[in-house]
């Protein structure tokens, strides 16, 4: 439990640094989305925004779950700070969705409960770090594929959005490099590889479903 708490602390410190930057990033994103030109493009933008919104919503609920368990411990204030950052992101995404008349995913209530439960679980198990690393790898891959799609469609229209996602990717990669030491600790957890695979498959499935529903 001690080690998990230490891991969580170091993780949170580094994330706090990254996320304070991405708050401003999202405010740029709001104005950088050009209105879609035709139905195909709208459908593509719709599904991408829907997935990203669901992701932010899920992250929000995960922090809520973590707070519910660790709220009164030493890491409580940090988690609260991170949660506030995520709330800001979610608000911005809500605005973007409303502005572009994008349908939010039907699975939001499910996401609500699942995220909260996941947050609570993450505080308990020793493999918190490995979970986080696995999730962030999946998200990074997802952003990469979104960037590829936008680049294939028409790079010029989406330059700003692409550069924003590249920035977020870069931030996550830097954090991962900083946390490499921690990952060695995490790798000592038995069943690490299995856990990582399961989590990554889950993330991929979730992204696939959210794009459609």
């Amino acid at each position: 439990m001690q080690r998990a708490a230490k891991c969580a602390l170091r993780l949170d410190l580094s994330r706090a640094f990254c996320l304070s930057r991405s708050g401003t990033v999202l405010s740029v994103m709001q104005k950088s989305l050009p209105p879609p030109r035709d139905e195909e493009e709208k459908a593509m933008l719709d599904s991408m925004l829907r997935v990203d919104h669901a992701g932010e919503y899920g992250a929000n609920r995960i922090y809520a779950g973590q707070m519910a368990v660790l709220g009164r411990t030493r890491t409580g204030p940090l988690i609260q700070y991170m949660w506030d950052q995520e709330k800001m992101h979610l608000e911005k995404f809500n605005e973007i969705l409303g502005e572009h008349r994008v349908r939010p995913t039907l699975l939001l209530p499910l996401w609500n409960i699942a995220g909260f439960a996941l947050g609570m679980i993450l505080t308990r198990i020793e493999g918190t770090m490995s979970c986080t690393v696995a999730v962030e790898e999946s998200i990074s891959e997802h952003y990469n594929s979104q960037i590829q799609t936008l680049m294939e469609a028409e790079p010029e229209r989406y330059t700003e959005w692409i550069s924003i996602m590249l920035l977020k990717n870069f931030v996550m990669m830097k954090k991962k490099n900083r946390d490499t030491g921690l990952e060695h600790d995490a790798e000592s957890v038995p069943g690490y590889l299995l856990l990582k695979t399961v989590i990554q498959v889950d993330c991929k499935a979730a992204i696939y479903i959210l794009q459609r529903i």
Partner: protein
Amino acid sequence: LCCGYWDMAALIRGLRAGRVLRGLGSVAVQTLSPQGSNVRRAFHRTILLQLVNDSKSDTSVPPPSYHEVHTAGESSSSSAHGESSEDAQPNTSFQDQSGEHGEDYETEEQLQARILTTALEFVPQHGWTVEAIAAGAETLGLSSASTGMFNNGAGDLVLHFVTQCNAQLAETLAEQNNQVQLGQAESKKTAEFMRDAVEMRLRMLIPYIDTWPQAMSILLLPHNIPGSLKHLSTMVDDIWYYAGDRSTDVNWYTRRAALTGIYNTTELVMVQDSSPDFEETWAFLDNRIKDVVNMANTAKEVQATGESVVQGLMGAAITLKNITGMNQRR
């Protein structure tokens, strides 16, 4: 095949000779094919008054985007009421390959839209049928065989009408929204806005109210259901958007479901209503909207009560833990 050939001769009379002959030349080979689908394609091609080079006359025109068909339909419906096709047609297609020949350039979709709009005048007389479309085509100077263009027959006519009404509604709502944002008008409360929007949309049915049950049953045919559902959901989304709904959670779905229910039931009441100016329908609409608002308020109250109850219980639990000394920090 013989009649097809004579009908095309009638077409030539109605259209500008030079342009069509150029098109005819390229499709003459196809005309004589024994297969019916080829005749139809050839027919379509002659209708395409496309002023491009001969090399390009065989390429089919990609359909314009959705709102451009609208603007074409609307501008042509506003300017054309029984006018012959020889009048100047608005050039709103985006594919302006030969900009110098601006006039008399129309895609198949625009022509279809014009025929259907004109056909609406004959609906009270013929009902929502292919006969109405044929009558509309004849008014435009085209042969009644041009109904062959419409694979879905009466379904095309009904869907066109629905599209037109929805576009008009969206335009009016956008205009009202503009005025509110410019400060020239006051914003309405949600319930009032809903009521006005639904009433406005349903009033567009009044000229066709006698034949509307027929149209509704056409919309319920299996192959028309995807189209009609899409139109319905777009309309409901439009109304909520202009009412100011920017929700991004489950409310998005519940609100639209509620409005769909209100709209459909009010429509059903309207076709059976015989009161002057449909007073009973509007009264029914008022009551339904009140119901939904009540339900929403009740749901909010229940949620608030539930939260208070939970907080009360938590408080009681903590007090108990304090009393028994279980709440000390280790």
